[in-house]
């Protein structure tokens, strides 16, 4: 699933490790989500949305549409 994580992270000058720490996950998890190789669960997607102050659909792109 495509997403804007890398851009959003860069806007805040956060490294993958910084974001991982805020999400309480490993850096590999952030990398896997960012590169679209791993789709986060709904709770993690909500956590991401809360962290960036956005809605889920503003971060993730529905690839079926």
């Amino acid at each position: 699933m495509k997403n804007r994580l890398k851009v959003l992270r860069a806007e805040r000058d956060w490294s993958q490790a910084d974001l991982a720490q805020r999400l309480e996950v490993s850096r590999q998890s952030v990398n896997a989500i960012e590169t679209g190789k791993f789709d986060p669960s709904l709770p993690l997607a909500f956590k991401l949305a809360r962290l960036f102050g956005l809605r889920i659909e503003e971060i993730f792109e529905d690839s079926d549409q």
Partner: protein
Amino acid sequence: MFCSSKSPAVRRFARSCWMSAGLVVVLAVGAALVFRFWHLKGLLAYPVAVLPALPILWVLFETGRFLAVEKDEFQRNLLVQCLLGGIGGTLATTTAWGYLEAFVRVPHLRAVWIYPIFWLFVVIAWPVVYRRYR
């Protein structure tokens, strides 16, 4: 294995796996020595013979605990994929070997080797799974 992540759950699980592997070896050697020198027979022989298999239950318990406790769903996903690799590899290998035994008369594979074979496939699966998410 499991060393690139530093979460307490991962560390605990890895430690349990290594300790249980060591315990299997120690108990297997211990049981072999007991049977060799004391020629154990009767009812007591059964629990002593089964003793080396008990650490497997510990690993099963720790696996369940890891999947319940680890907050990082990606790490849980990695472990599940590795375990599936281990299960699939073991099923395929032992089934193929069974047919070889039946039809080609290759040496008999003793069931005690199934557990080490499983972990061998888990260890093989780990870098393959990891590379997918690099």
